[in-house]
């Protein structure tokens, strides 16, 4: 059996008395596009920094492709942690030349590799411009190019779509998907954008308070909650409707849905038609009942509730 691309065992890190990453265990198999999810402050970035050796871990072990020595293990890894930083007075090309030296590339091999990654992210034409003049989307692509230097087997991406406009987000999503599919690079990506993660990831782990709360294949996690129904309810009097829903056992208001409708979870043991009949019986005025497909957001909210 192939070594796991990333295997984290008992990773722990505390700042004083505050334990930010608490006995974290997770496994990313080769070929996975793994979404690392969690609310703000859940410990995602701290965990990723520990994995890369940027910050010390108090306990635990991190192995990339079976290698636990941090320096040797990082030969497998390309990474973008939070907002990528560049030397703004240097061109994109010079920034990559710097990074190529640190990736162990030199001479003609380095030049060929830089050309390859620039072409891969579509930045070849702007490579000689100063990095300080790049848009955020271009900086993210340059960061991907830098992470790709040396042909890593796994990419660790921390919020790679942060701050991008919709077009930039889409380009980044397609690039990540393509890197996984065509370049056969294992991807480990943290994100707040659950729809994005659902669109590109085959497996996810959900972290809360430094501990992994759920991990598995996206389709399996979505299937786990099939006994739970989520519907959108429309009403000319949403406040009254919210009060009525709150009074029914097995039903919870999740929050606002689309077009001013109310997003409601109908739990196991309560059929949707029986629920609607109960609403009407209690005097609710309904003008829409829209079944919704269970998505990663539902899973996330359930796990982190």
């Amino acid at each position, binding site marked *: 059996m192939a070594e796991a691309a990333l295997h984290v065992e008992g990773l722990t890190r505390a700042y004083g008395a505050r334990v930010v990453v608490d006995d974290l265990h997770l496994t990313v198999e080769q*070929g996975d596009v793994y979404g690392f999810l969690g609310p703000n402050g859940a410990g995602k970035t701290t965990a990723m920094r520990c994995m890369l050796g940027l910050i010390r871990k108090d306990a635990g072990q991190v192995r990339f492709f079976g290698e636990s020595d941090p*320096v040797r293990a990082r*030969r497998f890894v390309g990474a973008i942690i939070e907002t990528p930083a560049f030397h703004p007075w240097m061109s994109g090309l010079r920034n990559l030349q710097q990074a190529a030296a640190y990736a162990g590339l030199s001479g003609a091999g380095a030049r060929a590799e830089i050309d390859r990654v620039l072409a891969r992210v579509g930045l070849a034409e702007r490579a000689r411009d100063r990095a300080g003049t790049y848009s955020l989307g271009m900086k993210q692509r340059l960061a991907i190019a830098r992470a790709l230097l040396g042909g890593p087997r796994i990419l660790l991406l921390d919020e790679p779509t942060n701050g991008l406009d919709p077009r930039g987000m889409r380009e980044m999503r397609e690039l990540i998907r393509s890197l996984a599919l065509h370049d056969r690079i294992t991807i480990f990506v943290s994100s707040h954008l659950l729809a994005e993660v659902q669109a590109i990831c085959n497996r996810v782990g959900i972290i809360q308070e430094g501990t992994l709360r759920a991990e598995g294949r996206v389709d399996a996690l979505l299937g786990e909650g099939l006994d739970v129904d989520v519907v959108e309810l429309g009403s000319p009097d949403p406040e009254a409707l919210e009060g009525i829903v709150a009074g029914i056992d097995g039903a919870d208001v999740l929050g606002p849905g689309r077009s001013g409708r109310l997003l409601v979870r109908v739990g196991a043991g309560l059929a949707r038609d029986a629920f609607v009949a109960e609403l009407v019986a209690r005097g609710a005025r309904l003008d829409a009942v829209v079944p919704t497909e269970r998505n990663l957001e539902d899973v996330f909210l359930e796990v982190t509730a």
Partner: protein
Amino acid sequence: MSASLSTLPPSPTLGALVGAEVAKLASRSSVRLGLLAVAMIAVGVPLLALLATQAVSATPPAGSDAPDPTALSMPTVVGFVISLRGLFVFRATVLAVVAVSFAGEFVARTLREDLVRPVSRATVLAAKWLALQVYVAAGMLLPLVLAVPLAGVFFGGTEGFAVTLRSAALQWVGDVGWATLVMALSIGLRSVVGTVGGVFLVWVLEQLFVWAVWGIEQLRVVVDGVLKPMGLDQALKPILDGLVALRPWMPSAAFGLTWPGTGETLVWQSYAAFVVITGASYLAALTIFQRIDVD
């Protein structure tokens, strides 16, 4: 799918990293300004000396015992260049370069991008320190390369050139230690402003101490005269002697800064202090660098 280290690039060599760091330093405006400053001194001093000589020659002094302006020689003028460069001009530029390339890289988070690579922190620090020393060496070689031929053409003569070169070499050795001390402070403080302020504070305190000790030494008779009626002269003698004995161990002596009021040669204690301060600075920098969390 399988992965093995043999199909990946090797970890970078120290030489390759030094090359990359030197290239990065060379592109920094603070480095260019620093080299421009010493180049201007190297060119400006011989030119000014020539102009002064010509002005004095055009109006010969009346007295026969007036100094002969033509007595200036290449080694003397190059010595002026080295002295002027040593009046904290170049070391101020080293401070600026260290502040932006060590603390500055923490703040800008560009250091993080180096540390996610397959290279140990000790190697990263060694590469950055060696690159800094390339700048320090260039800061001495450049003025020599410019000033020696210029002063040679203007004034000629080689007598005493060995002494001038020895003084330049000592100043360069001092620069190596100074750069290392400032680097340690910069890594410890991890703030550009803090580095400049911290170094300035250390320098001011050290100078105050040095001048105080010098004052005690020069006015020892007066001090003893004041203390004797109080019966303190014998009790305080070992302390005062100890303070005076510290003089050659101070960083300003170790790094070759001019000792106030004297032109005395370095004593062995200053060489020892240089080794101790420089070595301790590097070790402190390495210890901190290997332990710090990098955001």
